[in-house]
């Protein structure tokens, strides 16, 4: 099959030391911390109270709107608290979190499993995926059902299953494809059905030959599913670059991939779809790569959602040396953790403890010499050094004009910058600043509208008062006149 090349990109050292290590289950921790927002969209709304006894897989919080995802119990136990708890987010701010104390029995709740999910209608499949709380598991955590429902409005000609896993260190998708290829393929077929699409391409980077082989074996009977090898280059696993590589199409700026008939789902999402539809199991666990040079025993673990990072690190023998950075996710786009008391959520694909040598981070930025390495590395075709200098001087309009909102935040520019300029953070800052400005502008407009409404109301009230007074006066006068007339008559 003919592949296309995306521009730019980088080749960070792969460091995939755990790719031959089988997935092991993590022993059940005593407490699980389930944030009500593990996804993009509105936070889930708790349907249980403190002290409630819950079973594994039971609904704990429902999705209040279409773009949201419910939260289920990762094990059986008691709801100990619903409180603010550190979120897996760069800010380290707290979010509302359900704290579940395990009773150690790990008892499943009853669930209805369809005899043959392929007899469900596309809408029903999407609905079940939504009810199972499945979100994009490659890191973005966008509710999967919302995407699957797009098949109604757009004719999807190609479903791309993203097995790129281009981030260094991470091997959780690799292991999943190697160990459970049948389940992945089954999930792919179910998604095809939900989208009413005829073709699925599973794109796997060239550095995962075993995974490719396993998948090929599992789908050799199927004409609609095809495994393709894509070059190992960061950011291959980014949706836009993956679409470009596989189809040669580019998602138009500001549009969704579905509008050009393509949809991308992660392999782990596909596995979750399989679990939900074949076994009635909501998304309550995921595979996490625990790795990094500062860690004693890197491995792949199957972890109940809500487990603290601390437990994973403890299970992997703790640290060999003090890590320079502890991350949730990969080194290119992951989130730096303020401490280890942060839970694993639906989008967490890795826990990394990087040594200082691995990060190679410089303490200070040097001046930009315009060497152009960032522009060469940018997979979008932006000029990061120009963008960053605009962002730095607060020239947001100029930054917008240079394509600030086209930036996918992949970090390739910062990675290559010899002057160690935090380009990506400048873009994050500028994007945030832009959002803030828009909010304030909206607020200003709202305020003006409200003030005008009040002015109108006051005028209306004054007018009403005036009319009422006039009416009363007229009535009084009429009465007076009537009395006067009566008097006259009497006389």
């Amino acid at each position: 099959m003919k592949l296309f090349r995306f521009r730019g990109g980088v080749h960070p050292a792969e460091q995939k030391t755990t790719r031959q290590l089988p997935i092991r289950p993590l022993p059940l921790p005593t407490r699980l911390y389930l944030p009500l927002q593990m996804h993009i969209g509105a936070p889930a709304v708790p349907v249980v109270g403190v002290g409630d006894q819950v079973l594994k897989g039971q609904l704990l919080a429902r999705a209040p709107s279409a773009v949201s995802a419910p939260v289920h119990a990762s094990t059986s136990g008691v709801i100990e608290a619903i409180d603010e708890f550190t979120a897996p987010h760069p800010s380290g701010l707290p979010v509302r979190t359900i704290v579940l104390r395990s009773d150690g029995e790990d008892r499943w709740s009853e669930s209805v499993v369809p005899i043959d999910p392929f007899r469900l209608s596309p809408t029903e499949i999407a609905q079940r995926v939504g009810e199972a709380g499945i979100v994009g598991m490659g890191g973005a955590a966008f509710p999967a059902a919302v995407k699957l429902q797009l098949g109604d409005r757009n004719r999807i000609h190609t479903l791309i299953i993203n097995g790129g896993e281009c981030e260094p260190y991470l091997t959780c998708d690799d292991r999943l494809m190697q160990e459970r290829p049948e389940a992945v393929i089954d999930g792919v077929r179910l998604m095809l059905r939900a989208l009413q699409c005829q073709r699925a391409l599973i794109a796997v980077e060239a550095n995962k030959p075993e995974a490719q082989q396993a998948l090929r074996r599992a789908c050799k009977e199927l004409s609609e599913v095809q495994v393709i090898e894509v070059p190992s280059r960061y950011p291959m696993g980014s949706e836009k670059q993956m679409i470009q590589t596989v189809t040669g199409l580019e998602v138009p700026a500001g549009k969704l991939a579905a509008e050009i008939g393509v949809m991308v789902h992660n392999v782990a999402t596909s596995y979750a779809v399989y679990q939900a539809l074949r076994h009635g199991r909501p998304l309550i666990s995921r595979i996490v790569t625990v790795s990094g040079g500062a860690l004693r025993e890197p491995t792949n673990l199957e972890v109940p959602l809500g487990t603290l990072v601390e437990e994973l690190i403890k299970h992997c023998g703790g640290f060999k040396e003090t890590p320079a950075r502890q991350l949730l996710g990969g080194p290119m786009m992951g989130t730096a953790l303020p401490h280890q008391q942060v839970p694993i959520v639906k989008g967490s694909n890795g826990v990394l403890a990087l040594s200082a040598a691995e990060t190679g981070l410089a303490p200070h930025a040097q001046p930009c010499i315009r060497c152009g390495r960032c522009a060469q590395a940018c997979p979008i075709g932006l000029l990061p050094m120009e963008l960053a200098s605009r962002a730095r001087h607060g020239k947001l309009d100029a930054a917008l004009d240079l394509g600030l909102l086209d930036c996918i935040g992949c970090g390739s520019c910062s990675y290559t910058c010899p002057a160690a300029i935090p380009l990506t953070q400048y873009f994050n800052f500028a994007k945030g600043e832009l959002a803030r400005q828009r909010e304030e502008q909206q607020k200003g407009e709202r305020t003006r509208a409200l003030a005008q409404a009040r002015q109108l109301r006051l005028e209306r009230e004054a007018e009403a008062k005036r009319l009422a007074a006039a009416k009363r006066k007229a009535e009084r006068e009429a009465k007076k006149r009537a009395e006067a007339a009566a008097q006259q008559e009497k006389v």
Partner: protein
Amino acid sequence: MIAIVMLALLGFALGLALGVASKRFKVESDPLVEEVSALLPGTNCGQCGFAGCPTAAEKLVKGEASVDFCPPGGKALAEALAEKLGVDFDASGMADGPPKLARINEALCIGCVKCFRECPTDAIVGAPKQIHAVMWNACTGCGKCVDVCPTMCLEMFVPETGLAQWRWPKPVESVAKAA
């Protein structure tokens, strides 16, 4: 010689044209004041010290007020005004004063409707003898209600930053010290 005469004539003609134009196309009221006025919140809250937004707009255009004069408008308004008036203004130095909201202590509220009448954006709901409430998405944080409350049950507070409001800070530009 001819050149000098030509230049003199040219200068004279242009001067005349400008003079005529200035008389003929004279603008009576300053349209800029109206444009600036349209940018202001229009709540006439008086926090700036001027008598209402239109007055403030006039002062601004005359250059008697700085573009960052309006507390409820904040940084965004200052930037917009600076652009409209063509003033050089560095908003990055402006303390991004956290937007405040009014809160009613329900234990103290007597339902006097004074704040309700005062609020320039009708953000306070309630009826006589009933406890009032502030609708935060309409509150501009002008603080007028606090001044009129007879029981001091109103207070301004800074809402907590949640994940939705959090923004990446600007990278620290640490000047590398001679190392």
